[in-house]
């Protein structure tokens, strides 16, 4: 993974609006990258790059909404803040339904925009941290042997060692050894912690 600092990506076909947004974002010390079209942005964007996206809802060629759909299709999680014109409320609603982070109507106060950008960046950092943690847990899960995995699944459902031993046809002592290995490999300090790890990774494994 390249190590980009979180960047505010701006996609607007109006050169003046685009340049002014970049100017504003840079004036508060955030890196900003401006693109004139959805296609231009997609060509240079890697979904692993952190940041947020300021997106004009109306653009010739691929519209803002279509770009959002494309990002969803590619599994990109970058938060999108839509910028809309006066009569564009229905479009803004549609964007929100498709999972946009927020929207702003033109013209707007700079503070409103910067607040939304900061929140979007925080959201992105949070979700990236969560994804990284999940990836780490999944990596640990992958180191368990099949028997350890069976033991882990049963004990995280709240079954006592004795019951687990009976279900797997092994001694309680054997279960205890497997259980110790699981706790160690998963870096879990307690059963509660192990349960949380399993829950955290449950959703992505159902929905890769």
């Amino acid at each position, binding site marked *: 993974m390249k190590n980009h600092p979180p960047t505010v990506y701006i996609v607007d*076909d*109006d050169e*003046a*609006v685009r*340049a*002014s*947004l970049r*100017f*504003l974002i840079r*004036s*508060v010390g955030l890196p900003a990258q401006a693109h004139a079209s959805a296609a231009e942005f997609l060509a240079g964007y890697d979904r692993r790059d952190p940041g947020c996206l300021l997106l004009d809802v*109306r*653009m*010739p*060629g691929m*519209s803002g909404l279509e770009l959002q759909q494309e990002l969803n299709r590619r599994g990109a999680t970058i938060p999108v803040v839509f910028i809309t*014109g*006066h*009569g564009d409320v229905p479009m803004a609603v549609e964007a929100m339904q498709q999972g946009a982070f927020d929207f702003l109507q*033109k*013209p*707007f*106060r*700079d503070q409103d*925009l910067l607040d939304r950008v900061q929140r979007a960046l925080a959201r992105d950092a949070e979700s990236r941290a969560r994804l990284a943690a999940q990836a780490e847990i999944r990596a640990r899960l992958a180191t368990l042997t099949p028997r350890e995995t069976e033991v882990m699944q049963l004990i995280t459902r709240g079954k006592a060692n004795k019951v687990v031993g009976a279900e797997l046809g092994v001694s309680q002592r054997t279960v205890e050894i497997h259980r110790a290995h699981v706790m160690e490999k998963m870096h879990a300090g307690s059963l509660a912690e192990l349960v949380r790890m399993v829950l955290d990774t449950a959703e992505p494994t159902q929905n890769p």
Partner: protein
Amino acid sequence: MNGELQALLDACVDAVIIIDHRGCIMTFNRAAVRMFGYQPAEVIGRNVNMLMLTPDQQHHDEYINNYLDTGTPKVIGVGREVGARRRDGSQFPVSISIGRIDGDGPPRFVGFLHDLSMRREQEAKRLAAEESVREARERLTHVARLSTMGEMTTGLAHEINQPLTAITIYAQAAERLAAQPSPDLGELVGALRQISAQALRAGEIIKRLRDLVRNRQTHEELLDLNAVVRELVVLAESDARVNNVQLVIDLAEGLPPVLGDTIQLQQVMLNLVRNAIDAVQAPGCERLVTLRTVRVAAGVEMSVSDLGSGLDPAIRDRLFEAFATTKPAGTGLGLAISRSIVEAHGGRLAWRPNLPRGSCFHFHLPAVSGGTP
């Protein structure tokens, strides 16, 4: 004069005046009395030039003498329109035909006079009617333009909102910068420059808009059609943007000037562009509209083509008829008015299929040689 002849003359609708070879009035019938307001007794024996206007009044005696000397008729047998004077001094137009009466002694002359005041009035009425038709057409053209602009409000509001948004952002960011302990003056100046450039841009859009909305008389001048297209694109692009359509501008170099009215030609182009934008809204159409100018034998051609689904053959024939429309909210006047504008410019507006698909509306204007716009 015998009674029968007098009765005959009095029954005439036109004035009949007989004069002798010196120009003195001998006979003045009833219609002449009605026309001039003199009684026969007041005019008999007096020179007929009392009924005339300058310069005929001064020269009438000469006319008669010339004719008697040379025998060459100027008015006799030809007839002409002249001005006449009533007893009360008022003037009126008459058509006059003159005949020569031969008999014993010097010739006499008979004049038949027909009052043209009524005909002149009708003529004036006809001209006024034509004028009001022309005015009505200009008003209709203006209303059509307003209605087009009305349909474009969303796009235009958006187009003006763009520079306003940029100005707002630059101003606020500049304020933020200026509040820093050691602000970068170069950055600040850059922001200020952008603010004025964008304010001018907004002003330019409003100016174009006002030009189109203003009610005005036709104003023809030598034009560079490319410049007319480029000015229009400022407005048309807003509409295109709102409808998520891309405009492609393809203008030929070195076109000869044409004679025309900028606003009316832009109205035609705007109408064609709006139709084209509507045409590519159908699902599965590539949202591309091309505005093109080319040199053609007949002058300069301007065309607007789309990649829509083309025209139903059933409506092709009625395309330019007033009130023929396929749009739910259409007035059906756009193309009819556009065609009449183009024809008033000596050109022709027509439709042809666009390749590989869609429609191409095109018109040409005759080139004006020997002048630059």
